[in-house]
């Protein structure tokens, strides 16, 4: 028999490696093995975080980045979902739009940044636009495929039991496509952060990416590392939230 791992251990074990790495990093940094110009010690990064929090700067940048990310995600996600929905359900809509969307999908959305800057300047619109564009395709593809691959037999069964229109959609088609849709959403959350980092690094007057670029000019290593850590934390956080939603909505699947 395998030894069973109890609940508390399951929560803590995944953190063992990161914590150990942090400890080593701190020890080597304070011993002077890692020079602060290459990589500041974790405690220095923490200190920078505290200082920036006290001045209120950090919170400003954070909320601006978060706002951009969510706005772009909502816009792109909604459009992608609706397009996937229509093309999945309606043959006519599929004929009209699917090929075009598949073609656009193959353009890396980050390649559009120069164009977008020329269109919108470097204000909010350009960043939200790029994020929305990046999020749109994964949500579209997974929604479309999810709906296309709903078991035809289940749909026939629903019809035989008198379901049609909205009832058929909400009882059978949407739940059948949901796990695929959620995969798309989780993937697009990753795309969302990545896109935002790039956009903010290239052209912005605020946000975490700007904070990092600005720190570079003044050689503030600790602030640069802090912004990287923040992105990592946010990435992890959105993944955790997505998993929680999946766990709740796909209970029947466990």
């Amino acid at each position, binding site marked *: 028999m395998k030894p069973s791992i109890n609940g508390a251990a399951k929560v803590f074990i995944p953190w063992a490696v990161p914590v150990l790495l942090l400890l080593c990093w701190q020890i080597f940094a304070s011993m002077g093995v890692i020079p602060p110009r290459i990589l500041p010690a974790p405690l220095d990064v923490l200190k920078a975080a505290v200082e920036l929090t006290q001045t209120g700067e950090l919170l400003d940048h954070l909320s601006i980045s978060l706002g951009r990310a969510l706005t772009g995600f909502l816009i792109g996600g909604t459009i992608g979902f609706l397009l996937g929905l229509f093309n999945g359900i309606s043959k006519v809509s599929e004929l009209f739009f699917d090929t075009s969307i598949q073609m656009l999908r193959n353009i890396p959305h980050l390649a559009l940044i120069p164009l977008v800057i020329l269109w919108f300047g470097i204000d909010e619109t350009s960043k939200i636009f790029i994020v929305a564009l990046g999020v749109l395709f994964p949500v579209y593809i997974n929604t479309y495929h999810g709906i296309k691959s709903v078991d035809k037999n*289940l749909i026939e069964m629903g019809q*035989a*039991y*008198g*379901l049609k229109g909205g009832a058929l959609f909400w*009882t059978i088609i949407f739940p*059948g496509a949901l796990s695929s849709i959620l995969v798309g959403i989780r993937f697009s959350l990753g795309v969302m952060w990545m896109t935002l980092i790039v956009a903010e690094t290239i052209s912005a007057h605020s946000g975490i990416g700007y904070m990092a670029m600005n720190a570079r000019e003044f050689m503030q290593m600790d602030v640069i590392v802090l912004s990287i850590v923040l992105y990592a934390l946010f990435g992890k956080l959105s993944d955790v939230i997505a998993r929680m939603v999946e766990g709740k909505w796909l209970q029947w*699947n466990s």
Partner: protein
Amino acid sequence: MLSHIPDSHIVLDAVQKTYNNRPVLNGINLTIKFGEFVAVVGKSGCGKSTLLRLVAGLEKYDGGSICVGGMALNRLNKHARIMFQDGRLLPWKRVIDNVGLGLHGNWKMEALQALRNVGLEERGQDWPAKLSGGQKQRVALARALVHKPDILLLDEPLGALDALTRIEMQDLIETIWKEKKFTSILVTHDVEEAVAIADRVILIEDGKIVLNKLINLPRPRQRSNSAFANHVEEILDRIMLRGKEKELLVVNRQPETLPLVRKAKKVVPESSYKEESVRNGIKDHQKPQ
């Protein structure tokens, strides 16, 4: 119109169905009385499921006519409920909500009662994935029965179950049928199953009904009974007629290979062969003689 035949419930007249220019059903004539239990047998792909789907109104027929209760059928048959071989429960709905599918108003009590009828009232809150194959089929049966259908269509509902569970389910279906008095069409591969529950067994071959046999045995039917065995034998013989003709063709074409096959098969004693093929029904019945 054929609809005025007094106690006929379902009347199929020269029904045709073609898929991609290939006729699947080619002139089916069948009259089923109110409350009658008809079993449909035939080789895989002969159009049994197609026939059921036509009667359910899930698909349009290409020729002839279907009347249900004196009315021509030209869309979903609201009086019929169908039960599929693969159950088709919605995995994302709990058992009780699966049973309540398509019901309106205060349906919980009815759904619970239907579950009670199939002996699963305690599993209402489970996910279908947690049930055994036989239990899933019982839920599917409850889901069909909760609508109090006039016609119950069964498309090999027990095909995937083991022999013991199958006999249990056959008894359950027969009991419920006797109590509710609906009309029923059962598609099955298992001739013994057909003879055990049906008033009449029909055989489909080449898109036509080639055998239409009343089963006049008293209920409950004893499978060990010799009259029962005779009925099964007779239907199997009719099905095998084809098999024998084909086998003759094979003999004529390649006489040198056949004796080998025969020798190999002879190792199995004749009696166990017979039992096996009767139990498995038609699909496995093309044995060398």
